[in-house]
């Protein structure tokens, strides 16, 4: 990792991280925002235990589980794209990026089906505090999946090692947030 920190320099602690330092500013900001949402969700759950239990019972845990597998596998594909890029194999890098992107699209498909199911039951963002937070958190996360897909596409278009690392760092953050969001919102009772 020494070669890319030499390409930048002067960013302090951010120099030791792969990819563009400004991406890490974004990643840290995102983690703070989602962290705040997790705290808000947990505090609200303590305040309204019955409402949150009832709301959680209406969630599709299987869909959430499938999405966890889709996104983690997609993260693996993005990591393999970076190592392909490091080996100088642009073709293989692009192929892995496409794989990561397809799995991301799959995630969005499952999410959309989940939302549609809720809508058909008459559940929306204004139903109660549980669903307000459910839609805000999963919605913000899904928006980041979409942004991530755009970033992966940009990397596939200009696949330098720095770009690949920058894009993969963002994509892994989207993974990380989901891996925390899924148990907090769907599983823990």
């Amino acid at each position, binding site marked *: 990792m020494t070669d890319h920190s030499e390409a930048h320099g002067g960013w302090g602690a951010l120099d030791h991280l792969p990819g563009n330092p400004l991406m890490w500013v974004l990643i840290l900001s995102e983690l703070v925002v989602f962290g705040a949402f997790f705290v808000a969700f947990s505090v609200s759950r303590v305040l309204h235990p019955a409402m949150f239990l009832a709301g959680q019972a209406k969630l599709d845990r299987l869909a959430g589980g499938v999405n966890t597998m889709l996104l983690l596998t997609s993260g693996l594909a993005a990591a393999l794209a970076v190592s392909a890029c490091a080996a100088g194999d642009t073709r293989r890098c692009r192929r892995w990026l496409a794989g990561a992107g397809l799995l991301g699209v799959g995630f969005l498909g499952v999410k959309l089906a989940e939302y549609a199911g809720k809508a058909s039951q008459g559940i929306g*963002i204004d139903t109660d505090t549980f669903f307000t937070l459910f839609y*805000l958190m999963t919605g913000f996360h899904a928006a980041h999946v979409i942004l991530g897909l755009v970033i992966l596409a940009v990397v596939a278009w200009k696949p330098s090692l720095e770009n690949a690392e920058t894009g993969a760092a963002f994509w892994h953050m989207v993974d990380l947030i989901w891996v925390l969001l899924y148990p907090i919102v769907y599983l823990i009772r």
Partner: protein
Amino acid sequence: MKYQSQRVALYYFAGALGLFVAQILFGVIMGTIVVVPNFLSELLPFNIARMIHTNALIVWLLMGFFGCAYYLIPEESETELYSPKLAILQFWLFLFGAAAAVVGYLFRIHEGREFLEQPLWIKLAIVVVALMFLFNVSMTVLKGRKTAITNVLLLGLWGIAVFFLFSLYNPSNLILDKMFWWWVVHLWVEGVWELVMASVLAFLMIKLTGVDREVVEKWLYIIISLTLFTGILGTGHHYYWIGTPAYWQWIGSIFSALEVVPFFAMVIFTFMMVWKGGRSHANKAALLWSLGCSTFAFFGAGVWGFLHTLAPINYVTHGTQVTAAHGHLAFYGAYVMLNIAMFTYAMPNLLKREPYNQVLNMWGFWITSSGVTFMTFALTFAGVVQAHLQRVMGMGFMDVQDQLGLFYWMRLGAGVVTLLGVILIVWSLAVPGSARQAGRVAAQPAE
């Protein structure tokens, strides 16, 4: 000063300082009306005085930004301004529009929409002025060197013009009216104005501390990333109680609570640069204002904003004197001090005087800052008492106002001190120092 055309900035600085004095004068008049309710009641009702106080503030800050840009951009772009004549014409047109608006207000001609009271034709004139300005500075940057500072400054200035366009959209639905009103008000002061602030501070840091441009630029990028990340969705903290969906309470609370981060980053940035920079610039007063700017902005905008930004707290404090306390310290710290920092740096160069009347200017800094700080505390305590009596105990509005009299007298006293400080600042910038003083100060750069 390296380029002749930078001198057009002097028009804007002079105009801004004149309006600054007027703004504070009207503030003192309002502070008096609050404690002596019949003061000038026929001639100048409170709502008219308030319009002039707030409009004069916004106009002089913008005029200052224009001046800052006209000084900064030729120097950064390493080329003369595209058209100095256009800049001077733009100044007179802007000043005429501002004067016409004020005279109109005195004759009760206004549109009544808070802060955007200007009649339609003046709003359109402001758009023309903005276009003249943007054309001039953009053409200058296009023909010259492009730096991170000019890019961020232009982004901020274009943003100011684009968001002002929403002042022309006034839907009859009161909820939509307020929603878009904030696109001007919030996305200015907690969005694009912060980009102007960061870039001008970055320029001053390069000039005053001698730190490498590369280091300053990195800080600039981090600061504006944080600003846009928190500030845009932070608009949600105005959408709690205006009729917008309840989820805004979550979005607004979380994002706006983080708006303190870019302001904190600016404090770290300015102090780090001074600490790292080897060069000791003779213009100590400009450095004092720059450091004061980031520090007071952090407290006024960041800390005092955070005090009442979370929805459950705002439910109680909304529209109380807590808001007034925040508004005063935030505007002073972020934008008044930024402008005065730039004026203090640029005016001696433009007028070909060595840094002059430094001591007087620094007295102005401390007296004005003390006045505004005392006012902020008086209004904060008033707001806490008000929120408790009115919102928790359920007392009537006017009964509560009677309980706040002491705080309002303290605010008036602080306002008078502020006015004194402002007169000192303007005097020190406008009037040349005595020969003895100038001689003493001129000896300093040799260090």
